[in-house]
């Protein structure tokens, strides 16, 4: 009694999808898509939303190294790159912190000694060293001395002076005044002044000839003796206090590295996926459905409605989409959701209207439509319940395949600096990487990781789309 399925039968969406996921390419795309969907759902658990919101806030990223590679780069280069070391004297649990306060008898003043001791066993020099001060004082500014002690016993005076602010930072390897101390140290060891030194190398190199540049210096690793940052302070008030946070910035960070503003690229990748997916899917689905509905209405109602819709479609089709979009984004600086709205508004009428119009012209002569009219179904019911399901199974492969087009559109607008400036999207990271000269300087992770996410999204949807097309469109079936 049951007829076997044959070419030319009408597929429901569900059956088409089930068929598609049975093929190899369909399965592959299902796996990739499932991965992206899981990431999208749990994006908040992987990386907190605040981090993405603070994308443009430099304060939020100050503890991260600049332009660090992903941690797995250690395996590629088979070299143990330095991780970032953070030691904060406020954290009294930390065994690396020694803080001694000696009150001067009979007075309110006291002297404080803070030592932050750490091991260093990496194969490369750190990228930067900074010391963050948090000083509480009354009328009299405390006197501060900062020393760098290497495991071989050499001691460098990095800073000596008054704390003028409550919060300030010594950029030891960047601030010219502080770097000058290192020049003096090298001069002391060499007996002459070097023209150029690499500050972070000097701090971590074996003392002796060639310690001023990374090419000639050797990393001084710790065994028994450790590196020490020693801070001596004379405080003059009863409630005065001083705390020090040392950050030795590494050269690798996290899964995806960082960019030139210390931002974690992984954050942008994790939050870029749900945004790219929803942008692509929402744009593609709503544009196709709206156009299909207009096409169906044109064919169903005919006459003036048909004329109006067909002419509007012709007008829309000659409007240059991208230039207008660029002008709008340039003038209004759209957020990504406004951009989505504009993209949809600019695509209300288009090629799908014409395709579906001719398809529905054919469907409406079918006798089941005539039957529906005869048992009293209203026009809307016929269009929505009888015609649209037929139409959707036809446009579905197209919907799936055009998702990547909209993902790329967002990325392309970001590349033109017309994307959402407030939130990290994949396109924005790629755009930043190009502006930051990533390709020129070889910061490969900055370009490759976000682009590969976009490419995987595109591949997954394209594979699924082609597979569905083969199933729904019998002409494409293999003989």
């Amino acid at each position, binding site marked *: 009694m049951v007829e076997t399925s044959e070419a030319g039968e009408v597929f429901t969406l569900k059956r088409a999808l089930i068929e598609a996921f049975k093929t190899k390419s369909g399965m592959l795309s299902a796996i990739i898509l499932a991965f992206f969907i899981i990431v999208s759902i749990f994006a908040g658990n992987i990386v907190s939303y605040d981090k993405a919101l603070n994308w443009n806030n430099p304060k939020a990223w100050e503890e991260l190294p600049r332009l660090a590679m992903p941690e797995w780069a250690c395996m590629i280069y088979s070299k143990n790159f330095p991780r970032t070391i953070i030691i904060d004297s406020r954290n009294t649990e930390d065994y690396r912190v020694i803080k001694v306060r000696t009150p001067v008898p009979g007075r309110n003043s006291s002297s404080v000694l803070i030592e932050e001791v750490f091991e260093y066993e990496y194969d490369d020099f750190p990228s930067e060293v900074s010391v963050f001060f948090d000083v509480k004082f009354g009328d009299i500014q405390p006197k501060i001395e900062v020393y760098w002690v290497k495991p071989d016993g050499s001691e460098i005076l990095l800073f000596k002076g008054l704390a003028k602010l409550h919060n300030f930072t010594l950029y030891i390897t960047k601030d010219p005044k502080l770097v000058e101390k290192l020049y003096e140290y090298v001069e002391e060891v060499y007996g002459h002044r070097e023209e150029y030194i690499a500050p972070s190398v000097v701090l971590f190199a074996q003392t002796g000839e060639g310690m001023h540049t990374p090419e000639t210096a050797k990393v001084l690793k710790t065994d028994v003796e450790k590196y020490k940052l020693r801070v001596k302070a004379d405080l003059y008030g009863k409630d005065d206090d001083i705390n020090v946070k040392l950050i030795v910035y590494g050269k690798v960070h996290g899964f995806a590295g960082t960019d030139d503003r210390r931002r974690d690229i992984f954050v942008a990748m994790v939050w870029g996926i749900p945004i790219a997916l929803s942008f692509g899917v929402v744009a593609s689905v709503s544009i196709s459905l709206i156009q299909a509905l207009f096409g169906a209405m044109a064919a169903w109602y*005919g006459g003036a409605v048909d004329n109006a819709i067909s002419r509007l479609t012709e007008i829309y089709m000659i409007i240059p989409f991208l230039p207008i979009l660029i002008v709008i984004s340039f003038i209004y600086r759209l957020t990504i959701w406004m951009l989505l709205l504009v993209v949809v508004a600019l695509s209300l009428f288009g090629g799908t209207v014409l395709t579906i119009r001719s398809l529905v012209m054919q469907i409406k002569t079918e006798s*089941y439509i005539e039957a529906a009219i005869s048992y009293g179904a209203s026009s809307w019911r016929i269009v929505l319940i009888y015609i649209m399901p037929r139409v959707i199974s036809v446009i579905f492969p197209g919907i799936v395949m055009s998702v990547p087009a909209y993902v790329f559109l967002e990325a392309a607008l970001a590349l033109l600096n017309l994307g959402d400036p407030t939130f990290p999207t994949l396109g924005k990271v790629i755009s930043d990487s190009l502006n930051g000269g990533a390709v020129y300087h070889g910061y490969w992770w900055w370009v490759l990781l976000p682009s590969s996410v976009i490419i995987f999204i595109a591949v997954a949807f394209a594979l699924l789309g082609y597979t569905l097309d083969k199933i729904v469109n019998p002409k494409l079936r293999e003989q």
Partner: protein
Amino acid sequence: MAPILEVKNLYLYYRTRKGDVKAVDDVSFTLEKGSTLALVGESGCGKSSTVIAITRLLPRNTSRYEGKVILEGKTDLMKLDDETFRREIRWRKISMVFQGAFNALNPVITIGDQVAEPLIIHDNVPKEEALERAKKVLEYVRLPDYVLTRYPHELSGGMKQRVVIAMALIMNPDIVILDEPTSALDVITQANIMNLLKRLKKELLLSYIFITHDLSLASELADRVAVMYGGKLVEVGPAEEIYNNPKHPYTVKLIGSVPTLRTDKKLEFIPGTPPNLINPPPGCRFHPRCPYAKDKCRKEEPPVVEVGKDHYVMCWLNSG
């Protein structure tokens, strides 16, 4: 008692580029409650157009649509506006079984949902209840429960035809129009469906308008037979009379062309082609193919005369 449906002077013309197609031209007949009227004739004679005119499934290019269609002696259906007609008449009073059940079912909607559709549309019945009633109607046409969740392509031709009949019955209509309900079925299935239709008619007191080109099939079900030719009704009468004592030469030829099993009868055919309905022949429309055509037939349209009880013929041969 007034007849359940009375059609008076019905016209339906279609506009084409070459001129108006006079598909239904001054057709009148009556349908009694609980009886079957068979509308027979060759392809293109206006059978289906008559039904289109009664059920108002008018195409966009309709150019002339007039006459009276009186339901139960009271309501003139032609005077109702489209919305009232849709709400009050469609499927509540008059339902229809379409030609080619294969195409009359939506391929992407399950059988249950489809049979229940009229209920949901007209009475706003909740879906579960509608499906429950669909199940009952399907039982009535002897279909098992499981078809409710099947799609049309999973059923055989006979099953689909039963589904379409069930769908026509779900709102308890008075009149069911059967538009060639068995034309695409094999003879066994055809016999099954015909028996089903007979049983339903008796049990539910239905009135049928049965459209077919097959006279032998019509004789199975019909109480009265109306023969159409070229957009006109040429002979109407009780089935017995039409089969045993046909008066119009066209009816005679039509009966003569029905094959019988294992007899040595030479099958007759009617020479010539069906008339062009844009420019129908003057006088009697059958005269170019009629062996008895006289001069008068070529010039004047014959009147309708009563030749027996309730037996009307439109032919000069029967009116002097």
